[in-house]
């Protein structure tokens, strides 16, 4: 039983890290009013980039950095289309997913199935890693896990809710016209945070192939990008809630395998579906809660709406 708890917790943290990174990136983009449906494609691009990078350099940090840069570069293309040219965000996001997945698949042909040359290996923290359950589950993880689960969510929370810049940023997502009138550079903020969000998604892909699996195969993202998008809505567009949600998804994913190992009387196909069933459940819950919590978990008012200064 103790082993089981350790296993679930450990896998949840490891697996959920991908979702945390993706969801935090999406929070940034959506907070400035841009709906990025391209996460799935960005995950794939980041993943394959990281694998190719370590195959040539054998340094996991360089691999992750390459994934971030590629994610950001594709983010610029996307931001150029939806912020500068004001193209339809839904269509551009879908295009990014399709193009990104296809491109990653083509680029990764020669690397499919081969274990990563360099990975983010777990590091046992002296003393703490001896603790029961938490020792192996929490204090023997690779260093990225702490950055992803603690540092980044707190930093983004602080940025969004404790700084003037964060207030401006949220204002751009809520009412760009008012923000513009107050002297906030709407276009610049939107562009910058969409690119930053895409870089987060690239990092999520790199984390997937360098820390979690660790290898590349076509279709390795397995819909995680979509789960991350759903997670952001479920979390009311808040970084800390999104992190909690990602943890829940990590647990659900891990339970699917534990369920089979423990012979729960559920068909394996259903257990494999758990994360996706969980997504649907998560989309329903906020809708039911909407009446009670009111405005608190609502989407940014200008989400998905291109901003034209002339129409003020």
């Amino acid at each position: 039983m103790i082993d089981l708890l350790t296993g679930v917790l450990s896998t949840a943290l490891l697996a959920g890290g991908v979702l945390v990174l993706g969801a935090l990136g999406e929070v940034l983009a959506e907070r400035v009013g841009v709906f990025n449906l391209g996460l799935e494609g960005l995950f794939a691009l980041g993943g394959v980039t990281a694998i190719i990078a370590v195959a040539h350099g054998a340094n996991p940090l360089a691999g992750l950095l390459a994934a971030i840069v590629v994610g950001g570069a594709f983010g610029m293309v996307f931001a150029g289309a939806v912020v500068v040219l004001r193209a339809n965000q839904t269509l551009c996001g879908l295009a990014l997913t399709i193009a990104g997945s296809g491109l990653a698949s083509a680029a990764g042909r020669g690397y499919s199935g081969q274990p990563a040359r360099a990975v983010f290996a777990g590091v046992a923290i002296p003393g703490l890693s001896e603790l029961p359950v938490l020792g192996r589950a929490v204090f023997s993880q690779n260093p990225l896990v702490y950055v992803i689960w603690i540092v980044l969510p707190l930093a983004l929370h602080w940025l969004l809710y404790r700084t003037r810049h964060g207030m401006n940023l949220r204002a751009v997502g809520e009412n760009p016209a008012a923000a513009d009138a107050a002297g906030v550079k709407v276009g610049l903020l939107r562009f910058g945070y969409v690119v930053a969000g895409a870089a987060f998604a690239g990092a999520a892909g790199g984390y997937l192939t360098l820390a979690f699996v660790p290898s590349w195969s076509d279709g390795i993202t397995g819909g995680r990008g979509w789960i991350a998008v759903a997670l952001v809505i479920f979390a009311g567009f808040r970084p800390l809630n999104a992190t909690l949600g990602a943890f829940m998804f990590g647990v659900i994913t891990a339970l699917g395998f534990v369920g089979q190992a423990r012979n729960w009387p559920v068909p394996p196909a259903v257990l494999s579906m758990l994360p996706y069933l969980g997504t649907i459940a998560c989309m329903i819950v906020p809708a039911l809660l909407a009446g009670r919590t009111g405005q608190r978990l609502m989407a940014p008012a200008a989400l998905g709406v291109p901003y034209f200064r002339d129409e003020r």
Partner: protein
Amino acid sequence: MDLVNRRLPRRLVLQAGGLVAAGSLIRPAQAAGFAAVKPEQAVIGFGHVGPISDEGWTASHHQGLLAVKQAYPQAKFLEVESIPYSADATRTFRQFVAQGAHLVFVTSEYGDLLHGVSDRATDTAWLECNGHSAASNRSWYYVKHWLPSYVAGVAAGLMSKSGKLGYVGSMPVPTVYCGVNAFLMGARSVKPEATMQVIVINSWFDPQAAAQAGTALIDNGCDVLFGVMDEAAYLQVAEKRGVPAVMWNTDVRRYGPKSYISSIVLDWTKFYVAQTKARLEGSWTPGQPVLLSMGDGVDRDAWGDSVPGPVRAQADAVRTRMLAGYTPFVGEIKDAGGRVRVPAGKTMTDLELYGWNWPIEGVSGLRGA
């Protein structure tokens, strides 16, 4: 026919049978064989289920292609990787025909998706790996993987302390049932109380799921892993957790040098070259399933560092006996529900082993278990 009935919907079997019958009525000449082809005009196709870079299943078939290429360098080769189990497969097979292929190796079972094309392309000879039906221009082939699986099981039984073995399975198909059963029978021959836990991940190639399944098995007390994945993800997990593991397809010990016990290694080169030779010389005959035996297409790999000397000796003694014709697959064998399925003294035939679709006593996690 019994074998086919259990695996495929009846309607399908009737259709396939009808097509075979119709084919032989309309084209009696076809059954007589295919005309010889000059090597420089020959077109040989290979259709794979995975990427040739997988260092596993598809890589082993790619080795087969390379061997044929070496034997017939003048021939033209068509190779398509990662063909999905969908209408895309049908399109790919049709493409082989359009390009004038004389012989096509389909290195995984595509069933209807293939037969719909091959039954109309009677000038092309088809070989379907792990297939379940033949026609006037199509055969199937596979390996007697249960023999080395049993040998590896003996080693696993000797090396396991808890007696709990774990298996990372793809789908509930005969290859998986048979691999699990043979491995556990081998283990039980030296450790009668051994049991086997199976996790099915619904894919042949999903390093992510395989790694998680391996982790869950080890967390649940399994101290030797086996599986049938086309890549080495669960070996990496085993290495990290200090648990020995048996693999499939190729030698992948470099991904877990301390854990590696052995692998069910495949070698298609001899068979592929022989089939190509027969087709080019005009002596290729369809309709005869081929099961490559141990030492002739499938074997255990050279033992890994994790395997102690006495264990190697004991397992290899069984292997030597098998090479001389011994089969351990003799009744009485009970299924997981305790019902006797193979009566005492009865020997399972190769086709029964090939089509095994129930788990033996001691297996959990597979349907019927």
